[in-house]
């Protein structure tokens, strides 16, 4: 095959499965194999709020350049869910592939002339190879992984190695899995032209990178940060943060002999109680945290105000999902920014951290516990569903053994002895941060009354206006102190190179950096900054002040970060141009490019376009992909016609059983053609091509069990 047609390590594959059928581990096996071959890969779960039965998708992007944001345009779909099949057919890009189970003939409505069909009789093969009903269901998934391995040139030895690791201790399960993989491989060898024109090739691009979910990294970070009390209420997509903390605690905090634990984890009756427990524990000197999502933060508002005003360390992880209200509980968004920044009534402000990778999730937890004790205030770690519940390629986690826990200004008995009169809210160091004591420190000194009511410097209740205002002003002094303590932003250039900048945070980084590089290729230079925290540090201020126009990229409707920049820094509204994505799916580079170009192309219409990014985006998509030229056009040309995916001449070498299957399949193919011929295919195809894909979400809301692998998997 001509090399110019081929695309190595650059494609998107989507798996359309039924929730609860064991597809998750098979799909992960596929992803992990590519990871093991040293190629950057990013999977995304697009799952329903449901435990069993509804459609679920798993989308994998492979990209040699290391761009790991989501990308539109599906090159190949594994469509094994009849429920969603119509939309799945439509979702494939023209010239792409549709891999399906042809144990039964495909209905004509699923036929498109411009895509390629790869029919594999998965059900039939399973029924013949396995007797157990559950195995018949599970191994369908493994068979298609085997088929994909052959189609994409995934090294079989890598798959075998992964299975061996997965079933360590349960080795007798390995042969059946290997058998299923081989069934898939052999079927492809016998029936299709392989490998496909887009495929993988071993690289050494990942070096020491790891693959991990953000939530697991947060949970592990809490263990390393010395958290001893965790209280929580289950809510998607945050549940697996505390579950990971539990798993790692079982490993590192359990005295195997006495059965006693250096940790207390309580599932609370609601989010109010969860944060109350966290505040109580921190007040009493134990590092404590909780994790929740938007609806939980709403409930926690009252207590966050208390922790702010009474100055009690508190660590909260907000794994954001699509709001408002219950919204789309299993989709991602960055829409709790304002809620978190100003949680609770009265004048309140909270310190926020914005990690982008699992490593940063881990680091954020270390920082959050230090900062919360140093500043004696809530620290909210703002991740999102995309980061929390999807595996991400990440730099390895690191911990400096010399790093001590920074417990902040806590007086011990010795220090209290030297003080004549302890004043809990006396600003001795003039940085707004006062000294606290932990109960039971000293028999007669250091006790005080913690309260959410106004008090004087000695923690005595007061309604004196001057005392109240002094306290509020001191809290602002503390806030200003915090600006020099929170993580600084990342700048993507040594010095400014443009009058235009892009600003982003959290999971928008993946697509934003890709968009920036594409712009650069097109000779459009922009400077870039990634926020890592709120309050904004001086670097953020300098960046905003030194650019004429800043595209603020965020995943919410109301441009919440843009508002914060205006409110907290007085940034001029006109110069902050919003680039928004709020459909619940992770933002893509194309989307960012379109919005930026639309603005740069016609500066006069900036406002209108920003206000309705949806409308303007779609049109531009086509233009952009066309103008980019390289990828899509070529692909279309290269895409073989359906007929060209013909049975390969090589005779099947396997057992007679396989031969039988092959024969049956051949018959099915004829049947498929017949069906197809009955209806004029072109019309059917035209109808479906332009339609948008629809993703349904229904059912129970809170209890979506995470797909996260147990912490125990860390040991090979």
């Amino acid at each position, binding site marked *: 095959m001509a090399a110019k047609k081929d695309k190595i390590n650059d494609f998107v594959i989507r798996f359309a499965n039924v929730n609860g059928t064991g597809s998750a581990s098979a799909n992960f096996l596929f992803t992990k194999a590519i*990871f*093991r071959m040293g190629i950057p890969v990013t999977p995304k779960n697009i799952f329903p709020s449901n435990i069993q039965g509804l459609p679920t998708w798993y989308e994998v992007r492979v990209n040699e350049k290391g761009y790991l944001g989501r990308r539109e345009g599906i090159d190949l779909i594994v469509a094994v869910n009849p429920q969603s099949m119509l939309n799945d057919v439509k979702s494939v890009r023209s010239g792409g592939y549709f891999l399906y189970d042809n144990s039964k003939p495909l209905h004509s409505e699923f036929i498109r002339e411009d895509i390629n069909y790869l029919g594999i009789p998965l059900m039939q093969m399973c029924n013949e190879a396995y007797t157990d009903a559950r195995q018949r269901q599970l191994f369908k998934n493994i068979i298609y992984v085997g088929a994909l391995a052959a189609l994409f040139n995934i090294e079989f030895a890598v798959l075998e190695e992964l299975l061996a690791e997965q079933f360590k201790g349960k080795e007798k399960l390995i042969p059946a899995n290997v058998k299923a993989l081989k069934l898939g491989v052999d079927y492809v060898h016998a029936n299709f032209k392989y490998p496909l024109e887009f495929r993988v090739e071993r690289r050494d691009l990942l070096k*020491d*990178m*790891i693959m*991990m979910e953000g939530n697991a990294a947060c949970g592990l970070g809490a*263990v*390393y940060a*010395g958290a*001893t*009390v965790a*209280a929580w209420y289950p809510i998607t997509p945050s549940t697996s943060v505390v579950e990971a903390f539990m798993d790692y605690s079982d490993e*590192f905090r359990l005295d195997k002999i006495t*059965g*006693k*634990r*250096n940790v*207390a*984890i*309580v599932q*609370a*009756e*609601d989010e*109010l*109680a969860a944060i*109350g*427990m966290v505040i*109580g*524990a*921190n*007040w*009493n*000197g*134990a590092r*404590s945290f909780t994790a929740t999502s938007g609806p939980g933060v709403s409930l926690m508002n*009252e207590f966050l105000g208390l922790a702010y005003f009474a100055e009690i360390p508190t660590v909260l992880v907000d794994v954001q999902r699509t709001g408002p209200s219950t919204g789309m509980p299993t989709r991602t968004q960055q829409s709790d920014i304002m809620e978190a920044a100003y949680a609770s009534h009265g004048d309140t402000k909270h310190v926020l951290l914005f990690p982008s990778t699992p490593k940063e999730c881990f680091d954020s937890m270390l920082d959050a516990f230090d900062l919360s004790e140093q500043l004696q205030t809530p620290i909210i770690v703002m991740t999102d569903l995309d980061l929390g519940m999807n595996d991400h390629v990440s730099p390895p*986690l*690191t*911990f400096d*053994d010399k790093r*001590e*826990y920074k417990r902040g200004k806590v007086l011990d008995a010795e220090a209290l002895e030297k003080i004549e009169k302890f004043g809990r809210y006396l600003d001795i160091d003039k940085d707004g941060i006062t000294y606290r*004591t932990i*109960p*039971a*420190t*000293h*028999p*007669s000194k250091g*006790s*005080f*009354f*913690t*309260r*959410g*009511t106004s008090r004087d410097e000695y923690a*005595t*209740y007061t309604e004196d206006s001057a005392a109240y205002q002094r306290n509020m002003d001191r809290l602002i002094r503390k806030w200003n102190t915090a600006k020099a303590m929170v993580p600084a932003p990342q700048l993507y250039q040594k010095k400014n190179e443009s009058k235009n900048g892009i600003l982003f945070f959290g999971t928008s980084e993946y697509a934003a950096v890709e968009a920036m590089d594409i712009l650069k290729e097109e000779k459009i230079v922009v400077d870039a900054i990634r926020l890592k925290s709120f309050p904004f540090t001086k670097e953020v201020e300098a960046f905003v002040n030194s650019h004429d126009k800043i595209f603020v990229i965020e995943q919410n409707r109301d441009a919440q970060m843009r508002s914060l920049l205006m409110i907290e820094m007085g940034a001029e509204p006109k110069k902050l141009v919003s680039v928004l994505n709020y459909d619940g799916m992770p933002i893509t580079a194309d989307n960012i490019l379109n919005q930026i170009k639309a603005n740069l192309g016609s500066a006069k219409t900036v406002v209108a376009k920003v206000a309705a990014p949806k409308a303007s985006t779609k049109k531009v998509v086509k233009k952009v992909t066309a103008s980019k030229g390289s990828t899509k056009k070529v692909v279309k040309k290269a895409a073989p016609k359906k007929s060209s995916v013909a049975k390969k001449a090589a005779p099947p070498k396997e057992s007679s059983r396989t031969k039988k299957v092959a024969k049956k399949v051949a018959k099915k193919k004829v049947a498929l053609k017949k069906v197809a011929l009955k209806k004029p295919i072109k019309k059917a195809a035209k109808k479906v091509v332009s339609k948008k894909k629809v993703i349904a979400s229904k059912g129970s809301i809170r209890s979506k069990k995470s797909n996260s692998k147990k912490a125990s998997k*860390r040991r*090979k």
Partner: protein
Amino acid sequence: MTYIRPKFRHPELPKNELGYSVDYYEGALSTLCAGCGHDSISAGIIQAAYEMNIEPHKLAKLSGIGCSSKTPAYFLSNSHGFNSVHGRMPSVATGANLANRDLIYFGVSGDGDTASIGMGQFVHAIRRGLNMTYIVMNNGCYGLTKGQDSATADQGSKNKTGHVNLFESIDLASLAIELGATFVAQSFSGDKSQMVPLIKAAMNHPGFAFINVISPCVTFNNNMGSTKSYDYVRQHVEATATVDFVPKMKEISVEYGKGTHKQVVMHDGSVIQLHKLSEDWDPLNRQSAMNAVLNAKAKNEILTGLLYVNPDAHDLHHMIQTSDRPLNIMTKEELCPGSEILKEINEGLR
């Protein structure tokens, strides 16, 4: 303001075993109304802590919001206190208790704070067997907002404005028994001699100890027709027994008549002495205790005293197997797995 407390104390005030006289256990001056039942309960707490030889700094006092929740400022000023948010004291107490299992946790709440806004947290703290003393200063009304009915106001009870409560009341004592509290008592703020031993026994109890104290609101709910007025309560109080609490290693000095005398030996060897006034009630039996409360209610009586106790109670720490050492004194060396382990974890994620 209830009273102006003189600074002068008799130089030879008796001292307890720790060498503290009772004034060491006092707090700031109360800002509640003169004659408020809550102040009597505060006085009872002070006396109980003094007599129990409690080191004030090893006790944490917590509350929610309301008149009752202000009181922790008025006793034990050498203890750390936490006036949290409305109805949420149990969760804060839970967290505090998890952080350091060695302290005594003393929670004060009111009928609004517990039976309405805080009902969820109250029942779940009981369910978890949190090791704490939980006192409800129960006056059947919202004092701080000027006398609205609370959820413990009896049906048909009339408040100061003449408004008659239409709804069934929530009986906190029977609810606590039902939910598995392992120490449930009821008392009256005007009966200090009964209340003090109950508070002592509650503080000594190794699980969730609940005391519902009827504490009339002199300003808003002390009128004719109210079932939580001083007069009404005095007329309808029916004690289960006289109670005495004898800490471990103390000689039992109280004598009781045969047949009505009952000793409950607690886990640590301390003893609750009961001189029963009712024959058909067994304080060690949940069902019997429940019946006694319901029977009294049917007769419009307020049953006071120790209603139910399980001397073999286990608390939350026992259930979740936390370390014997308090979690809040653990160091990085005990808690952090370190960089070598992290390398292993990384390896498992490749």
